[in-house]
């Protein structure tokens, strides 16, 4: 990740795969941090939704993952790295409705094939790379100085 300006805030959060009862906890904490920092409420919601969907993906499909929240004067970055199943076909995974979720995941109210498309929809910039059976990396960026998106 390239940083155009100096980092004002940075924090790493660990996510445990398959830990369904805590799924979403990290994103709730991230939302609190963004509120405390005083980020624009509309950006907070978009970033929280993206973070939550990404966190659920780690819980559902990976053994473990790390979310790094980085805030610069211009941008908010969510960087996700997980170790797990990875994604065989990213193009398919980005399609709304495509899912490889199990019944257990669907019982949680997730696994409808909306996660990655929803992350992309909320982000100003979204990058994804994955190696099957190794893991997935997401780079989600929000511009703090423009509000017209969404």
């Amino acid at each position, binding site marked *: 990740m390239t940083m155009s300006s100096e980092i004002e805030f940075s924090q790493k959060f660990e996510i445990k795969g398959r830990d369904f009862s805590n799924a*979403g906890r990290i994103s709730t904490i991230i939302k609190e941090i963004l509120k405390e920092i005083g980020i624009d409420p509309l950006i907070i*919601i978009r970033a929280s939704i993206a973070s*939550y969907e990404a966190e659920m993906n780690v819980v559902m499909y990976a053994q473990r993952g790390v979310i790094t929240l980085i805030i610069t004067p211009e941008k908010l970055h969510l960087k996700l790295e997980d170790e797990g199943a990875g994604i065989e076909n990213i193009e398919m995974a980005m399609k709304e409705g495509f899912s490889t979720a199990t019944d257990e995941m669907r019982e949680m*109210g*997730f696994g*409808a*094939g*909306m996660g990655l498309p*929803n992350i992309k929809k909320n982000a100003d910039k979204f990058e994804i790379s994955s190696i099957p059976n190794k893991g997935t990396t997401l780079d989600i960026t929000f511009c703090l100085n423009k509000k017209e998106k969404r």
Partner: protein
Amino acid sequence: MTLKEIKELLEAEVISGEESLDDEIAFAGGSDLMSDVLAFGKPGILLLTGLSNAQSVRTANIIDAKAIVYVRGKKPDKMGIQIAKENGIPLLSTKFMMYTACGLLFSHGLPGVSGYVYKK
């Protein structure tokens, strides 16, 4: 429509957030699918859902939902109630099923996310 009116219309039980019953609700949406709630929900929404695990409350909190009504007599688990209390999200539970609960609110003038209002 206030939460209190919603409670009465749905003959609902208040699980937590009794102090917020005077809060105004402007619109509502119903789904068991949290991905859909994240995709289509808007801040201030009253969420009707049959999903009673902690994810329902976390999802509501992420999108700044105003309150949750659990349908089919469902009730959230302990963790869900705790998260709701921490974040000031009132929780109600109605015996009505999703269709009836949504229909009751809609026909009494509470619009959906799109703003479409029921006309008699």
